[in-house]
């Protein structure tokens, strides 16, 4: 009787055994993540150690520094690690910050529209459109940027006068901050829309109805009550999108301009036409130099910086969402 009872998933698939096996797998996953973090930081450490805090600071031409670093492995005169990443960091801040600000505004309006105002036919179209935009591979965005948006900006938006005014410093070809921000916005806004609409849809109907009953119109109700109640989710979604934007490498490698130039807003509006190169694309562009130990350390240092910031952002987003679910507003 006992045997029959146990036959199908008998001692081989007993509960304890399955639990132990799954537990081991889960532990292996945790260990893998730890290994990843440790590996990236250890490999990047020489670069941080040689530069100290000036790693994050400005100074010199980053492209020259990178080529000196990778060539120093052959010279025999010792490795060079001098690297000041500020132009890359600044470019990352400008591009990702710009895209997240525009994406936040866009996504907020679209979510409000989807939840409250769009007629059924419109939301039936817009929801799949948002999902589609989120699933287009970044390399396709990059290709369209290179072949459509960049030539358009270069030929039609930037005037000859503007080109000649900075000719001695940098050539304006259309590979620009503007192109990068526009495309990155289109890439990350759908991600925010999906989080925002979930949050707005779960705002308690009674709160909204209360406001409507007091004679507040629907537009103000959804903004003053709905969007405010969903604020934690909006923070979470924005932060997640920021993490995604920081890690975007291939699309930006294609259209941001690929010179380590730091666009200066003090130059006036022309800075949005200036090329630059954020951190993640720098790794993609220099990946061939991985065989040179100092270059490898530098690239891993960049990766460590990216990993740290992206992980911090996504953990912050996750924590906000979690904290929020306690108050039932998730």
């Amino acid at each position: 009787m006992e045997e029959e009872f146990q036959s199908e998933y008998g001692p081989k698939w007993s509960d304890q055994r399955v639990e132990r096996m799954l537990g081991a797998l889960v532990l292996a996953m945790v260990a893998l993540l730890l290994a990843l973090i440790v590996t990236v930081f250890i490999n990047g450490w020489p670069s941080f150690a040689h530069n100290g805090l000036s790693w994050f600071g400005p100074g010199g031409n980053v492209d020259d520094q990178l080529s000196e670093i990778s060539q120093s492995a052959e010279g025999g005169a010792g490795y060079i690690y001098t690297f000041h990443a500020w132009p890359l960091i600044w470019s990352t801040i400008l591009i990702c910050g710009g895209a997240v600000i525009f994406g936040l505004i866009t996504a907020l309006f679209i979510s409000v529209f989807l939840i409250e105002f769009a007629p059924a036919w419109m939301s039936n179209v817009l929801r799949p459109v948002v999902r589609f935009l989120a699933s287009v591979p970044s390399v396709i965005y990059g290709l369209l940027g290179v072949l459509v948006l960049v030539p358009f900006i270069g030929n039609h938006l930037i005037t000859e006068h503007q080109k000649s005014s900075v000719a001695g410093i940098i050539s304006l070809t259309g590979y620009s901050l503007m192109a990068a921000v526009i495309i990155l916005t289109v890439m990350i806004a759908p991600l925010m829309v999906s989080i925002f609409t979930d949050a707005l849809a779960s705002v308690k109907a009674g709160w909204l109805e209360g406001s409507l009953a007091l004679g507040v119109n629907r537009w103000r109700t959804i903004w003053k009550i709905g969007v405010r109640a969903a604020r934690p989710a909006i923070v979470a979604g924005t932060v997640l999108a920021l993490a995604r934007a920081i890690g975007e490498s291939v699309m930006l490698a294609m259209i941001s301009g690929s010179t380590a130039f730091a666009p200066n807003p003090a130059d006036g509006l022309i800075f949005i036409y200036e090329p630059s190169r954020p951190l993640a694309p720098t790794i993609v562009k220099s990946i061939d130099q991985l065989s040179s130990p100092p270059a490898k350390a530098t690239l891993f240092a960049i990766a460590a910086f990216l990993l740290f910031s992206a992980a911090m952002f996504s953990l912050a987003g996750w924590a906000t969402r979690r904290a929020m679910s306690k108050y039932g507003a998730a």
Partner: protein
Amino acid sequence: MEGSVSDQHSTVEQQAELETGFPGGVVPPDAGNRPPTKAVEGSSTWSLIDRIGLAFCWFLGLLFCAIAAAIVIFLLIQGITYLKLDQLVTPAASGFTEGETGGFSDAFFGTIILGVMGISMALPIGVAIAVWLVEYGRPRALARLTEVTIEAIAGIPSIVLALFGTVIFTSTALGFLSRTSEGVVFGRSFFAASSMLALEALPLVVASTREGLNAIPRHVREASYAVGKTKAATTRRILLPTARPQIATGGMLGLGRIIGDTAIIVVLLGATQNFSEVEGVPFPLNYLRGAGTSLTNFVYEASPTGNLNQPTKAYAAAFVLLLMVLALNAATDVVHRRAKKVGTWSH
């Protein structure tokens, strides 16, 4: 576990609310008889600024539709113009004219190989992790740590995963997964790329599977235990089959992520536009251990910023890639809709 169950409830309610348009998805008893409430006010009484805001909503909504339509139509036109079917069966070659350089068959099959290998690693591991999290989840500290881990993996930029991959797969212990010459491990292979891609798809599979398992009410499990089934048997016979639509959804989302990724492939597979088989190894392994390419890598290299600079072929390859993504989206939609119908236990 209680927490996650109640979380789930709220999202299920959300979805129900979205579908039915009534709070909590509860349709009032007389809803069928009366026409949908037309009590919504129009915007005619609003102040100007509110109306401008609403107009801006419409503008952005239509803009998004226009962007999506522009992407699809533009690539469709370019694809029809430049895609020749023999490009899908001709490998890339070096040459000076368009005719000599061949097609991108290796990239096309590379994408398929990566998709199959990546998802066949991500799916079982992801489902196992989700099962552990929902059905076992003790000690709680480890469960919490696992959630954080999965969340962190989802947040790791793919270029960082790629760099991590170069460290693992160039180690001599894993030399059997890629090309080795004179003790130096090459580190670029389908094994290397697809295992890192699997890591990228993993969080999607875990999240979707958890959602599916959480949606199964407690009494279903209890009924199974009551007839003497073990937890393992219940999971395999009852829970996983019930959650199958959600698992499939997660798998397809993961697959989309895998075939759309470029950074990992450029770093861990690329450097060539052809399969480069390893000599002296039996059939499938010689290709899988060698370097290769994928459609994303081909598009990247064939774009004007890449090494090949053949924009027309980049368009053709991008069109094929877009078709794959669209097909995957459509399939996900169908499965997801079925998941909602079957998996909610509302009947």
